[in-house]
């Protein structure tokens, strides 16, 4: 309600022109930064900027909620999960989907243009009513909101409760698994091993390593016992399942030939 003679710059306007660009920058950071953590932090910037804007629009409760609930809780949850799944893997710069990126930007620009075109001039009254009066009605923003929340919108409020229950149950369901058996620690395992040795005579020590041949020392190659037979324990069960066990016979032959060659050379040398 200022005079129209002077282009008055109100506090709200200042706030807007500071927080607005910040929010946009934050958003851009979210979209553009390759590291997820940077993205999350940029997001925080955008959110806090929005909180500022809320405050400037006489919505202090929301501004606080935005900071405490959104930035403080929700975003932190994101960060926790980010850390859980490994923050070190940035998105690869190569876009796998053909033409996805340009089309995405085109789409984004299109949406923005469309929205701005539609919104521009759509408001018939340039002067906002502001919620000052509404806030004052019950003595404050929080009271006003409370009145609505527990009055007109009580059903939604209850519905939101259902929503939160679902969320909680969902998180439990997908992220928490109940162990059926107790996980064994080092001592228990050692005891088990000795028990097996005592009762069944199983070798308590480490298993024999794989064989080393002239042609290969792959893990799939079985070790040989001194009598030339295969040491069963040197074969990995998993590799057997995969069928990746190397047949030792040809390997032995190669080894044998090699030895033979060496021997023959030696013989030749001896001959000389």
């Amino acid at each position, binding site marked *: 309600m200022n005079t129209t003679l002077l282009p008055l710059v109100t506090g709200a306007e200042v706030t807007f022109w500071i927080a607005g660009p910040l929010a946009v920058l934050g958003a851009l950071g979210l*979209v553009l930064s390759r590291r997820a953590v940077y993205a999350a932090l940029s997001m925080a910037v955008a959110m806090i900027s929005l909180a500022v804007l809320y405050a400037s*629009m006489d919505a202090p409760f929301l501004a606080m909620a935005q900071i405490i609930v959104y930035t403080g809780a929700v975003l932190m949850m994101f960060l926790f999960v980010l850390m*859980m799944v490994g923050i070190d893997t940035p998105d690869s710069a190569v876009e796998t989907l053909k033409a996805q990126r340009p089309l995405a930007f085109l789409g984004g620009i299109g949406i923005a243009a469309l929205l701005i075109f539609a919104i521009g001039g759509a408001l018939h009254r340039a002067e906002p009513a502001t919620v000052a009066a509404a806030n004052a009605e019950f003595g404050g923003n929080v009271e*006003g909101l409370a009145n609505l929340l527990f009055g007109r919108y009580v059903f939604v409020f209850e519905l939101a409760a259902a*929503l939160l229950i679902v969320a909680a149950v969902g998180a439990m369901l997908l992220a928490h698994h109940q162990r059926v058996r107790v996980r064994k620690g080092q001592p228990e395992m050692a005891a088990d091993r000795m028990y097996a040795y005592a009762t069944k005579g199983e070798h308590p020590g480490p298993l024999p390593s794989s064989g080393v041949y002239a042609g290969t020392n792959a893990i799939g190659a079985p070790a040989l016992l001194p009598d030339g037979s295969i040491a069963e324990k040197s074969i990995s069960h998993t590799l057997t399942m995969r069928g990746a066990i190397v047949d030792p016979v040809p390997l032995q032959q190669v080894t044998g030939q090699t030895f033979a060659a060496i021997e023959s050379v030696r013989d030749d040398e001896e001959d000389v």
Partner: protein
Amino acid sequence: MMNPENYLILAALLFAIGSVGVLTRRNALVAFMCVELMLNACNLALVAGSHIHGALDGQVAAFFVMVVAAAEVVVGLAIIVMIYRTRRSTSVDDANLLKL
């Protein structure tokens, strides 16, 4: 007094940027954050609406949106964690067994 359309245009911008993020980011977490950004943009519009009309319904709505967003985040993160456990990856693109 500032033209309240500015708030809406800012919301539109954020919304558009958020949607671009969903389209371009392969990390499910980031993509999901972009969705959150879109919801935030909506909130801004709602609060702006509240501001324009001088009624608190918009702010109540924004509040509910926050609740919804929180719940959604919980469920979303649970799903992402579950996927991560199975595949050791949070890339949206890796999940493409279902197609054609």
